[in-house]
């Protein structure tokens, strides 16, 4: 800078010297001093021009011009404060929302899980052939053994299970508590290809040991803050001493994603043909999923040539990551894709709106550009000025948008509104940030530079005369603007429709009668130590005691035990055999649930008895085995018959023969969530068995309390009278139902937010285009009014324009809705994708908003004073 100033001074002085010397020369040649000074100056020419071009040589000019351009740009923004703010804000929202949503989408759907060569990992799940769709059944343990021994396409297989309750009681380490313990096979960690952080994972020789454990990082930390010397020590699980082999790294996670978990070795089951496992396979390099699938299917039919499983099921391969995603949320993938589609639409609308604003500015600035061009600004110079302005706008928007994306992703990580698949780390994705920034920069550049491009094409004279109004070039801009508005309205209609459908689905889903009364119903999980309560009599006696003690307390009004938690509880687990009818074929669809309950269950749940009787003291060990069935079972198996007194039993295949149960009662249905679709309620055919005939050691405790609050854990411990019995997960049923709704609601809220954003943007856009129209035609309107046109007819003219644009937009939108909302079907409940009420409401909302946006400029048109409009030339 110092150097530059000195140069500047030198140049000044050099020029002064030149003028002085020339002047003296002239005086020497006989000119008068005044003449000499003047002619020296004339001969020298434009001092400023000379200085500028000399300065150019040293290359400071670009910096000068840049500073000048930026200063001018800021002056220009200050003058058009509102539109500059709208442009920056619009782009920032577009960039921010898009980046945030895509970052989540990327983390969940696109990024591979942190296992070795994850593309070679597949999950193997059985498909019930008669039903089709997505395979949801565990494979059998003997399938796993069969594949392990005979497959040539796979490097290895690993099995795990999370069926039923996979908790174990940890004692000797503070008070006894339940900890999640996942049984896995020896190869589990080696197939996933993740080594232990401390110690080691399982190896074949561990099968000889009584009990060995691998700990998750979080579980290890929860034990006395994580000690290295824990490796090789013993932990007491379910009254057995287990050796700690190793600790996994903190990033390691698999489904089910419980952060604090221990892995135990799965013992070989007594009946491998009835024990279900989740199998993960690692394909050999170069093997395609289709080849692998063919081989497994072939091996499956070899093994099950003569049994029911072969008739019923067929294995299916899924990419491990997508399987985990599906297990986490059946609609997670679709939801993310829908949200990303929505946010992309928002980005498009943002860009369209910004284009529109810049376009209208460019029309307004045509005169300014023409003046500057006529004063000698070169085209390059004008272009650079506009370029600076555009880049400034998009740079500001980028900074804001990036901040917004970071905030949104940060919120998502902290608030955890949606359960994500294991080992998913959400962070702002640089690539999509770059892409959205590029898109917005492109928009501002293309439409920001329009005035310079126009200036180079138009005759300066015309532009100056036209005073930036009503020249023929205007119609081009107006047409483009109108096109953008039509597109915005159409896209907004699509978003509003989608949001409307999701919101109505959530509210219908939440308001659907559940068949039981969740208000005031409380639940807890209870677990008896298996050794101390080995016999059915011991279990039965304990449960009887527990319920009596609980009901004797002041706090508990009603209580019952059940093997299934309402809602999540028992889906179909078997087919059904009715006495006197032919045995079902081996491939009979698995459709019936079974649940064991204490007699008060139906009263606690508020289920209605429609026929027969409930369980009572008659139904105990040794008495006639009985069952109560629900109306769904009656509708399916006894549509025109009296079910009372009929005998039924579960069908697990021809080789197993369970005892016949006599139906003594029929109760109303309780709603359940089916495994395959989280956004629906099912009336699963179900039978209830009396507790005393089938006592269990693990149960859901259902109760209603007198007070409003949740009762303390100690109350249960006292009632149980045994410190080794564990109680956990005390919760309200309403909360459990709400949790089920939380994710669809979050999805609906986010989509609704995008839709509202789109609506606001479209309205702002429409307002802008119509305002420009009014401004452009104010002279014409003035003339017409001077010639006696009524205000109402002027209002009509502008109104027509607004209605036309909105109308075309809505028509196009309705067409797109017809095509697009079908994709949403899986996310809907109680409302069709092309629900006419929803479409009507959305169209009305859009029309009302558009009317508002049209009315303001139209009214301004009626207030045009003919005198002023005509004088204003």
């Amino acid at each position, binding site marked *: 800078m110092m150097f530059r100033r000195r140069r500047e001074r*030198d*140049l000044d*002085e*050099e*020029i002064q*010297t*030149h003028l*002085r*010397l*020339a002047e*003296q*020369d002239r005086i020497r040649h006989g000119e008068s001093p005044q003449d000499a000074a003047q002619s020296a100056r004339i001969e*020298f*020419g*434009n001092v400023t*021009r*000379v200085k500028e*071009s*000399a300065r*150019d*040589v*040293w290359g400071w000019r670009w910096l000068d011009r840049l500073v000048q351009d930026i200063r001018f740009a800021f002056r220009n923004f200050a003058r058009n404060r509102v539109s500059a703010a709208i442009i920056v804000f619009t782009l920032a929202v577009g960039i921010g929302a898009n980046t945030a949503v895509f970052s989540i989408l990327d983390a969940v759907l696109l990024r591979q899980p942190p296992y070795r060569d994850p593309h070679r990992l597949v999950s193997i799940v059985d498909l019930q052939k008669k039903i089709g769709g997505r395979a949801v059944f565990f494979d059998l343990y003997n399938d796993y053994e069969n594949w392990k021994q005979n497959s040539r396409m796979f490097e290895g297989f690993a099995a795990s299970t999370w069926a039923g309750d996979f908790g174990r009681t940890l004692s000797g380490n503070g008070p006894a508590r339940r900890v999640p313990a996942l049984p896995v096979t020896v190869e589990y960690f080696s197939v996933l290809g993740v080594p232990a952080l401390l110690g080691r994972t399982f190896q074949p020789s561990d099968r000889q040991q009584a009990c060995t454990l691998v700990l998750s990082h979080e579980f290890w930390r929860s034990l006395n803050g994580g000690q290295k010397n824990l490796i090789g020590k013993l932990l007491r699980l379910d009254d057995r001493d287990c050796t700690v082999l190793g600790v996994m790294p903190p990033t390691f996670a698999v489904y089910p994603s419980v952060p604090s978990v221990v892995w135990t070795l799965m013992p070989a089951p007594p009946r491998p043909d009835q024990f279900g496992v989740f199998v993960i396979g690692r394909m050999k390099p170069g093997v395609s999923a289709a080849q692998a699938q063919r081989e497994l299917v072939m091996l499956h039919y070899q093994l099950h040539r003569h049994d029911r499983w072969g008739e019923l099921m067929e294995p299916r391969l899924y990419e491990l990551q997508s399987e985990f995603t599906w297990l986490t949320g059946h609609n997670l993938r679709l939801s993310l894709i829908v949200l990303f589609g929505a946010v992309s639409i928002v980005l498009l609308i943002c860009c369209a709106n910004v284009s529109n604003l810049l376009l209208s500015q460019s029309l307004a600035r045509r005169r300014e550009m023409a003046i500057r061009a006529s004063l000698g600004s070169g085209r390059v110079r004008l272009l650079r000025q506009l370029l600076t302005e555009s880049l400034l706008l998009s740079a500001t928007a980028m900074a804001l948008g990036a901040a917004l994306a970071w905030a949104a992703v940060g919120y998502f990580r902290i608030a955890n509104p949606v359960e994500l698949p294991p080992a998913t780390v959400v962070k702002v994705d640089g690539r999509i940030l770059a892409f959205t920034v590029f898109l917005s920069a492109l928009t501002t550049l293309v439409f920001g530079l329009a005035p310079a491009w126009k200036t180079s094409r138009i005759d300066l004279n015309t532009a100056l005369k036209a005073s930036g109004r009503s020249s023929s070039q205007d119609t081009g801009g107006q047409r483009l603007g109108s096109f953008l508005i039509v597109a915005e309205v159409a896209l907004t209609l699509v978003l509003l429709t989608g949001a409307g459908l999701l919101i109505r689905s959530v509210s219908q889903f939440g308001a659907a009668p559940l068949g039981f009364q969740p208000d005031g119903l409380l639940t807890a999980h209870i677990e008896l130590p298996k050794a101390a309560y080995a016999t059915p009599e011991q279990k039965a006696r304990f449960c009887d005691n527990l319920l009596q003690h609980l009901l004797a307390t002041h706090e508990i009004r009603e209580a019952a035990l059940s093997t299934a938690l309402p809602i999540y509880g028992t889906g179909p687990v078997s087919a059904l055999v009715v006495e006197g009818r032919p045995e079902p074929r081996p491939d009979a669809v698995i459709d019936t649930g079974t649940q064991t309950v204490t007699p008060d269950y139906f009263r606690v749940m508020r289920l209605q008895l429609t026929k027969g009787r409930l369980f009572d003291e008659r139904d105990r060990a040794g008495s006639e085995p009985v069952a109560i069935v629900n109306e769904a079972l009656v509708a399916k198996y006894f549509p025109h018959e009296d079910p009372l007194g009929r005998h039924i039993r579960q069908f697990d295949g021809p080789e197993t023969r369970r005892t016949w149960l006599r139906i003594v009662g029929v109760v109303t249905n309780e709603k359940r969530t089916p495994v395959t679709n989280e956004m629906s309620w099912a009336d699963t055919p179900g039978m209830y068995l009396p507790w005393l005939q089938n006592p269990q050691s693990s149960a859901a405790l259902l109760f209603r309390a007198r007070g409003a609050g949740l009762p303390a854990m100690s109350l249960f411990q006292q009632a149980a009278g045994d410190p080794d019995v564990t109680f956990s997960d005390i919760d309200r049923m309403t909360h459990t139902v709400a949790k089920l709704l939380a994710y669809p609601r979050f999805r609906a809220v986010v989509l609704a937010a995008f839709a509202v954003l789109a609506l606001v943007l479209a309205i702002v856009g429409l307002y802008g285009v119509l305002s420009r129209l009014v401004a452009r035609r104010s002279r014409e309107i003035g003339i017409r009014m001077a010639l006696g046109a009524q205000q109402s007819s002027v209002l009509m003219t502008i109104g027509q324009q607004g209605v036309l644009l909105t109308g075309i937009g809505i028509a196009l939108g309705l067409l797109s809705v017809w095509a697009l909302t079908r994709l949403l079907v899986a996310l809907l409940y109680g409302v069709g994708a092309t629900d006419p009420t929803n479409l009507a409401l959305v169209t009305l909302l859009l029309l009302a908003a558009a009317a508002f946006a049209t009315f303001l400029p139209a009214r301004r048109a009626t207030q045009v004073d003919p005198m002023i409009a005509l004088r204003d030339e």
Partner: protein
Amino acid sequence: MTPKKLDLLQGTLDMLILRTLQWGAQHGYGISQTIRAHSADALQVETGSLYPALHRLEKQGWVNSEWKQTESNQRAKYYRLTAAGRKQLAAERARWEQLVAAIAAVMREPRPEAWP
């Protein structure tokens, strides 16, 4: 104004300036006067070209400058030819002579007898 005022060919001004400075250090006004005098008023260097050219030559290291007193005892910025400048002048002169010879040859050449 001289009626026979000639426009300088692109790049020629640099060569003229360097040539002028071969006779000794000179200031901007002096350079323009020298060129004018030596061309019998046919070449009048515009200040708008002269000063940018001087600064360009200085930036390229062909001339350097210092503030000195003139004969009339005024402070002025004198430009002096550097070793690199001398080399450049030789190169430009050679190129110039080739160009002149080539143009002259073309101008003198009689019309070809027949076009191929």
